[in-house]
């Protein structure tokens, strides 16, 4: 009976998380932090009950978050890997199908997470022992790979001379390096220097991400005068079993890797896993994106509960750890059950909310929607960080625009921004900061 009550808490959390997921720019961690603060003052449920609500919040948000990506184009990093196919589908009037296909990836990821649960306490503690002293070079290796593996996007240079062709080919590559460098400088400043009031420092990264992602999206939408075609809600979708299997496997591997590895996000994990498993095509891309996002967010929280691992990864793990620490194996299996039930519930909410959003966006000018998203984002930054945050957001938005204009890889911004942390882990961060004059 007690377990059923916890499941009910998880379902309530799922509904709340799913509703939040439809709001572009609003992160579920903000809601969880508010919940934790309220809980400390008014303990309205048991600590385990609160943790179950949090599980539901996260699962709902991870599953339904594809709606904001597909229909309102305000993706966070974890969705960036899917943003192009999803938005392409939207422009073909197949936004609903994109939502469903991405949701199928998340459901597949849920299944794989349940399989992983049976041997997680065996694998992860051993993995942690081995990898811990080597984390710094693994992160540096990922950064090196992301930069080295970006290929030219000149679509076949027509220049007559060798130098002309080289220049064409290196236009996007050099812009990619510039984006990396500028993001790194921003990272040094935001992460090392007191640019925001002390009581807001923990929200430093929020304006950076909004600047990197939302601002360029809103500006390009507004300038390109995009209009959304009528959307079709069909009862079938064009996806093969092979696409679902390969996309789910790839996304899950990337998401779990990102969930385990500090600083690495689902986007970067998805890139690595996608390359490793030779994933390709829009459908696999969308399935993989949904799977990766689910595995990344839910997987990180899942690690917090794995017996004998003692590892906190992801924002929700840290927030929960302030009020609750899992102690027994039965609690771990309670979490697994809550994830399973919430996941299935969230998938149906995804279908329901997608239909609702289609009705809403059909009534408004997409540019006005984009502008409203920008206003919401500015409001969130002002609320959580203050005017200092707006300055950071503007700078990050400028860097994001370079990325969009030159079609460079989005990961360069992310890897660049967190590169100072990689350098710190390798023990050379301070020296590099001094050399660059940003300390």
């Amino acid at each position: 009976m007690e377990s059923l009550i916890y499941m009910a808490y998880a379902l309530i959390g799922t509904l709340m998380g799913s509703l939040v997921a439809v709001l572009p720019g609003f992160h579920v961690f903000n809601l969880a932090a508010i919940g934790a603060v309220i809980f400390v003052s008014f303990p309205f449920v048991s600590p385990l009950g609160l943790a179950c609500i949090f599980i539901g919040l996260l699962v709902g948000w991870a599953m339904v978050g594809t709606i904001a990506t597909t229909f309102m184009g305000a993706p966070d990093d974890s969705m960036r890997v899917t943003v192009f196919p999803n938005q392409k589908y939207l422009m073909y009037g197949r936004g609903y199908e994109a939502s469903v296909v991405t949701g199928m990836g998340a459901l597949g990821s849920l299944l794989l997470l349940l399989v992983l649960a049976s041997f997680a306490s065996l694998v992860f503690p051993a993995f942690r022992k081995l990898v811990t002293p080597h984390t710094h070079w693994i992160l540096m290796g990922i950064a090196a790979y992301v930069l080295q593996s970006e290929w030219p996007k000149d679509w076949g240079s027509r220049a007559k001379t060798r130098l002309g062709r080289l220049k064409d080919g290196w236009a996007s590559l050099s812009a990619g390096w510039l984006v990396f460098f500028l993001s790194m400088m921003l990272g040094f400043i935001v992460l090392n220097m007191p640019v925001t009031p002390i009581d807001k420092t923990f929200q430093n990264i929020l304006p950076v991400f909004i600047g990197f992602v939302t601002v360029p999206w809103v500006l390009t939408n507004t300038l390109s005068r995009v209009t959304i075609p009528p959307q079709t809600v069909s009862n079938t979708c064009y996806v093969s079993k092979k696409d679902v299997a390969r996309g789910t496997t790839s996304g899950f591997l990337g998401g779990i890797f990102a969930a385990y590895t500090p600083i690495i996000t689902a986007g970067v994990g998805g890139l690595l896993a996608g390359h490793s498993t030779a994933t390709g095509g829009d459908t696999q891309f969308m399935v993989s994106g949904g799977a990766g996002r689910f595995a990344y967010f839910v997987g990180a929280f899942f690690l917090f509960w794995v017996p004998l691992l003692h590892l906190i990864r992801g924002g929700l793990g840290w927030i929960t750890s302030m009020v609750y620490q899992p102690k027994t194996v039965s609690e771990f299996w309670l979490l697994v059950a809550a994830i399973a039930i919430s996941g299935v519930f969230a998938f149906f909410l995804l279908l329901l909310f997608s239909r609702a959003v289609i009705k809403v966006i059909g009534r408004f000018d997409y540019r006005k929607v984009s502008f409203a998203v920008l206003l919401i984002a500015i409001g969130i930054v002002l609320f959580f960080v203050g005017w200092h945050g707006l300055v950071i957001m503007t700078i990050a938005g400028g860097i994001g625009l370079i990325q969009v204009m030159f079609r460079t890889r989005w990961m360069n911004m992310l890897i660049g921004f967190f590169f100072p942390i990689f350098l710190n882990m390798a023990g050379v961060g301070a020296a590099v900061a001094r050399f660059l004059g940003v300390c």
Partner: protein
Amino acid sequence: MKGITHFITGIMVATFLKSLMVGAAVEDSLVIVLGGIFGLLPDTIDFKFLTYMEKNDVVLDPDPYDIRPQEMAEKIAEEINRAGELRPGQMRKVQLHTLKIGPDLWQSYGIYFNTRMNEVVIGVGPHVTMSGVPSPGTEPPADKAVGVAKYRPKLIDRYGRPSDIKGFSGPSFGFLKKKDGSVEVVFIPWHRRSGHSLTLGALFALLGYLIASTFGWRNAHLYPLVIFIPWFMHILIDTYGHMGNNLFWPLTKQRTSGLYLVSAASPFWNPFVVYSCIALILWNMNRFTGALSPMYLALPLDTPVWLYLLLVVAVPWAIMGAIYVIYQARVKERPAELVAPTAGAAAAVAAGELMEEREYEIAERPRPPLWLRFLGLAVLAVVLIVLYSYGGGW
């Protein structure tokens, strides 16, 4: 193979060097990353530099709204004929451009060398997205769909399949005159030449040693190894595909043929190699840093490596391989699922859909002898055994 496969193979071989692993764990050294960078560097050099240095004899850049496949086929056939009149070792090169007609829309076309009929076939397909999804109704009319032109020399096409041209940058083809008078089709002739030679790898290794020793970096003697072995592994793994490498450039002039063991973009072999490399990296972490402190020890140090590889690599991948083979067999039984809707017209020609009266079977590709293919695998085994046996002392 995919870039990440080369990168992680480079990292994997670097982790066999004990001094680097201990240095990474104790002193936060980053030298291991060099293994990954040099593991991928041959492709970096080719695709970011050498591709732009290539001088082509003919560039075909058709108007996407008025493609004339017959003219294109005739131009290419003419180049093959010209190549037939060259001295042995000389080459004519043709560049084909992709035709971008929208932010994510391309006019697709394809080329096929029908060596049985001595014909170049150019087929025009529909508009497609980058990932190959076609736009129905954009197929060309029948009279503008296919161009066929005869050539004179005996043509050897080791790739042996149609090439669809529909995204990114287009391919180039070299027509190389052979000593026996035949002409060989060399796919993207700028690829896997100097950038994939052992000589250039050795030069980088020497440079690495000179820099490390000049600046007095610790373990300077290991820099050449962490540069050259990953480079060598890249070339070796590439050789397992259809294309070989020009191993001793500039002493040797031409690219060799591959061993035809795997396909470079295989959804089975790429994950297999990446997974196996990760398994070996974890093994090396356990034996080198686990020996420093039990905190980092996940497996007993006396665990036999064969047992580890059997349980962690061989068994799961044997199961995966069985599933893959069964799946492939099932797909072959239903060819309709094999042919993506995106396949260009040349592919359709090859499958006999457009011009049924002609015989367009794909010719048997010349493959290297079996002993050579075993030798390729033996070299990999020797490298890994040497690294495993002696890396602990380096």
